[in-house]
């Protein structure tokens, strides 16, 4: 594909039918009411000259290039700010307009460096284009002869882009992009008249300002003023490949723009269903890890984990895995081996691993890293709604009137969706935040939560029960919806109406005044469209699954399911958490969330795969570790995950891995788990993969190879070759055949193919004969399970309690610039913003411990301790401390415990009793005598 330049229609689309007929330059066109003349002209195939207009931003009307003539209208109005009227007759070209436009261009060019041939934006500059379009041949005022800005300095402080003020035409597109698209309001136009200039914050450098480096301003800039450093260094890209980001569960579509095989930049794709042209600092800029020198490109083996690695051929590595696995099965039984799939790998890569386990290994010992993040979502939504997925598409938030954010921090962890949510909040939607910590959403430019309920960590279920109690006892139930669509309501409502579930009774537990809870619950029930968005602050608790069911109960009771603007929406952590779960990665489920005990489902696979499937569940990840220590589990294939870092109770994990005879790691880097491995199989980055990711809204997006695998093989090919070497025939000619098999065997995917995705861009499952173009909103007419099921959710306090020895509660989260355990982002310039994990502690808690801002402190729980730097912050309530988990060296989660969700074993990362004190010397976790390195909150 050559370089893809998407059409720019000048101003945003307006909703509605195309009912307004206008004539432009003799061409008729019908457009929705409110559409600008500029956009109508573009839709008719007529490009009106423009500089300050772009269709991602509302019209501004400053550049005066887009002037037109309209019959019956005096003067020459700007086409960008003039809405169409029925019967309007417009001319976009006339001698008068040409003269006016040339005059405007002369003024622009008189204060612009004419270094086009050496300019980084040469060939991608709208000012250059407009000079051509308007027929500019001379500049009567000279160039740089009068007062000008040609000596304005360049701000190179941002690691990813430069701001060359000498090339700025003050069109305000960057300022408006920061406001309207990103919602950060970091930029402004400082000064007046000729002194007007773009200013990050109060005349600060970009790096020092509130800029979050999302790239929206760079994207919007029509000149070389804001330009990616990679373009400055390498030159303009020459071809594009549309693919999907490898970071969070938003699943943004990008144009990977290259020169030859060299990736120059990632540009958000306007037609991307999830992001619609927006991006964040990770997806837009932090792709350098894919070519980082730490990457391993050759397979390696060793006899013992104390030996040095030895590079070998693919054949030798694959045979080592196959013979090792079979040998262990002969000596210890077929259930002595298993595999773990990755949420960072494609659906196709995950599918073949679970197939290898079930068909070649002959057991169900397959699990996925979702075990430690969203497995309670799978359980809770399956029990209540009938399927393990969020109910809405991201666009749905545009119709929400009340938004509840529970245990999520979207501006840091899901920033592109957060921008969409913030836009809706600025339009007037109400916001309720349930979080111990004052996340940025609580109060940010032009946004303020109506309610921030700072509940005590570990009391989610008590809080959601209190909400539901208000709904039931104050007559706020949507009776018709419940009667028509749900079951088991009477039992649930009797339970929830009991006095012990009232906000008053639970105020002491949650720490939130009853009146505040009642007011928030009434607001949610009143809607009319109320939506719940949640994250790992819901799932990573001992009652994570119970809380998911509690939210589902609340949504059903108030009728907030089955249409735009409502729903129960998990914000998935990693790019393909949804997909890895969909693909049968859980030990009790085949693809499509169908239990292995179902004879009919097993029959589908047994016939196709030509081998029996066991009807009993296999081991989950924590159970694998227990079994390894018991001596019944001896070998593990680990795809793209770092369980030695990411799973809790690391001493236990390390002991389990050490007890195994064969550990196989497939990854980009020699991670912590590889320290226990006998075979290392180098993996491919997202730039090399061919397949699909599925995001948090069930959107199946294509991941297209930007370059050939640097390792020489796709990961799915390696897995197939291992299966073959074990005697099980598993072959595909290309990746599309794997998706074809998924579609053939999984009813919710039966309409999916690469051909369809290439044709329509993306679809959201279920995609089948009932929904050939996918299903943006689920449970519209009926729930997947038929009737929505109410489940009583008794609050059971966690066993993890603060004590005299450990009086504080630690909870964890993420920061914008880093991702998960940091394996990717720590290998990029994103470390500029977050070079280390910080412990946030309330000033009162700090004062009694003699801790000042910036001090190095010890953080200890009953299972381990580490040290890190403290920051005094009243974002946390007294008694609660907070940190991120991105840096192994600080080992922020070394202290988390073995407690887990009762239904799924998802670790309780969000509640750990700790003590904090001044450190006598810095002692990173991986050097601590008793503390194992780096456990981590999930995905």
């Amino acid at each position, binding site marked *: 594909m050559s370089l893809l330049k998407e059409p720019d229609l000048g101003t945003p689309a307006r909703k509605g039918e195309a009912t307004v007929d206008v004539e432009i330059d003799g061409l008729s066109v019908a457009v929705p009411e409110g559409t600008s003349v500029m956009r109508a002209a573009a839709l008719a195939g007529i490009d009106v000259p423009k500089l300050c207009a772009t269709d991602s931003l509302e019209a501004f009307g400053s550049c005066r290039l887009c002037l037109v003539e309209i019959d019956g209208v005096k003067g020459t109005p700007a086409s960008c700010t003039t809405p169409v009227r029925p019967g309007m007759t417009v001319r976009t070209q006339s001698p008068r307009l040409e003269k006016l436009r040339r005059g405007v261009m002369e003024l622009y060019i008189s204060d612009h460096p004419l270094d086009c041939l050496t300019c980084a934006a040469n060939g991608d500059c709208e000012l250059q284009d407009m000079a051509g379009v308007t027929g500019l041949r001379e500049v009567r005022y000279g160039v740089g002869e009068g007062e000008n800005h040609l000596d304005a300095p360049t701000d190179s402080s941002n690691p990813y882009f430069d701001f060359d003020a000498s090339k700025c035409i003050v069109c305000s597109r960057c300022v408006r992009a920061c406001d309207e698209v990103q919602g950060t309001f970091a930029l402004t136009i400082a000064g007046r008249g000729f002194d007007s200039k773009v200013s990050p914050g109060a005349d600060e450098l970009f790096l020092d300002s509130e800029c979050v480096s999302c790239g929206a301003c760079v994207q919007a800039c029509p000149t070389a003023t804001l330009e990616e450093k990679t373009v400055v260094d390498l030159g303009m890209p020459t071809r594009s490949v549309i693919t999907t980001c490898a970071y969070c569960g938003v699943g943004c579509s990008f144009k990977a723009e290259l020169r030859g095989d060299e990736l120059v930049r990632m540009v958000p794709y306007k037609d991307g269903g999830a992001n619609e042209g927006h991006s964040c600092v990770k997806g837009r800029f932090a792709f350098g890890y894919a070519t980082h020198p730490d990457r391993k490109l050759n397979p390696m083996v060793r006899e013992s984990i104390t030996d040095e690695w030895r590079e070998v051929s693919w054949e030798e590595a694959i045979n080592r895995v196959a013979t090792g696995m079979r040998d262990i099965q002969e000596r210890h039984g077929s259930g002595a081996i298993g595999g773990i799939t990755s949420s960072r790998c494609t659906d196709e890569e995950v599918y073949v691993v679970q197939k290898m386990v079930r068909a070649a290994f002959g057991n169900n010992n397959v699990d996925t890293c979702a075990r430690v993040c969203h497995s309670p979502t799978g359980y809770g939504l399956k029990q209540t709604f009938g399927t393990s997925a969020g109910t809405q598409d991201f666009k749905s938030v545009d119709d929400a009137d009340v938004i509840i954010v529970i245990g999520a921090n979207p501006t840091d962890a899901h920033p592109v969706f957060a921008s969409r949510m913030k836009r809706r909040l600025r339009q007037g939607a109400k916001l309720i935040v349930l979080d111990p910590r004052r996340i940025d959403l609580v109060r940010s430019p032009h946004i303020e939560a109506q309610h921030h309920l700072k509940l005590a960590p570990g009391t989610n279920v008590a809080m959601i029960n209190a909400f539901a109690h208000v709904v039931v006892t104050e007559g706020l139930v949507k009776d018709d919806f419940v009667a028509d669509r749900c079951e088991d309501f009477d039992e649930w409502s009797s*339970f929830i109406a009991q006095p012990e579930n009232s906000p008053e009774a639970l105020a002491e537990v949650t720490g939130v005044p009853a009146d505040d809870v009642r007011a928030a619950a009434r607001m949610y029930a009143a809607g009319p469209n109320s939506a719940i968005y949640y994250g790992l602050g819901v799932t990573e608790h001992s009652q994570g699954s119970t809380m998911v069911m509690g939210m589902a109960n609340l949504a059903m009771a108030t009728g907030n399911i089955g249409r735009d603007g409502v729903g129960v929406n998990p914000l998935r952590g990693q790019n393909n958490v949804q997909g890895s779960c969909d693909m049968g990665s859980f030990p009790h489920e085949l693809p499509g969330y169908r239990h292995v005990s179902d004879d009919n489902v097993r029959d589908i696979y047994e016939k196709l795969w030509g081998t029996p499937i066991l009807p*009993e569940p296999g081991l*989950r990840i924590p*159970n694998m570790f*227990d079994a390894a220590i018991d001596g*019944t589990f001896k070998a593990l294939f680990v795809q793209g995950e770092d369980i030695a870092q990411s799973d809790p109770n690391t001493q236990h994990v390390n002991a389990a891995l050490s007890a195994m005879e064969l550990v196989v790691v497939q990854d980009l880097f020699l991670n912590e788990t590889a320290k226990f491995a006998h075979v290392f199989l180098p993996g491919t980055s997202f730039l090399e993969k061919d397949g699909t990711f599925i995001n948090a809204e069930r959107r199946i997006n294509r991941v297209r190879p930007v370059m050939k695998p640097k390792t020489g093989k796709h990961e799915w090919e390696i897995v197939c070759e291992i299966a073959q070497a074990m005697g099980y025939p598993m072959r595909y000619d290309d990746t599309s055949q794997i998706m074809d098999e998924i579609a053939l065997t999984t009813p919710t995917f039966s309409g999916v193919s690469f051909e369809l995705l290439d044709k329509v861009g993306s679809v959201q499952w279920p995609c089948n004969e009932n929904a050939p173009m996918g299903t943006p909103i689920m449970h519209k007419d009926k729930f997947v399970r038929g009737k929505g099921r109410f489940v009583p959710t008794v609050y059971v306090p966690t066993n993890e309690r603060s004590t005299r020895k450990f009086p504080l509660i630690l909870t964890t989260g993420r920061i914008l610039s880093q991702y998960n355990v940091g394996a990717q982002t720590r290998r990029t310039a994103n470390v500029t913003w977050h070079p280390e994990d910080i412990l946030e502690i309330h000033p009162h808690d700090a004062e009694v411990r003699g801790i000042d801002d910036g001090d190095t402190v010890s953080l200890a729980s009953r299972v381990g301790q580490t040290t890190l730097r403290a920051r005094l912050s009243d974002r946390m309530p007294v008694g609660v401390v907070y940190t991120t988990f991105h840096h192994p060296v600080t080992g922020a989660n070394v202290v988390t415990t073995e407690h887990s969700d009762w239904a799924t074993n998802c670790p309780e990362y969000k509640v750990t009793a700790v003590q904090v004190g001044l450190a006598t010397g810095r002692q990173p976790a991986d050097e601590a005598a008793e503390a194992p390195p780096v456990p981590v909150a999930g995905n």
Partner: protein
Amino acid sequence: MTLPPNARLANEIAIQFAHRPHDEAVAEIAKHMRSFWDPRMRRLLLEYVDAGGEDLDPLAAAAAEQLRQPA
């Protein structure tokens, strides 16, 4: 005492169903274990029961007894 993992997990499941009538709770707990536990986990739990089942929640113990029967 420190409970073995499967006994601890069984107790954590049991307490979630403690509000239900006894027989219903026991059936639900057993059903959950059949649905989500590998057979060797169930076997280890039964061995623990056979060894006295110290500190095992009575509901969990009753559910374990149901596991001895075919589903």
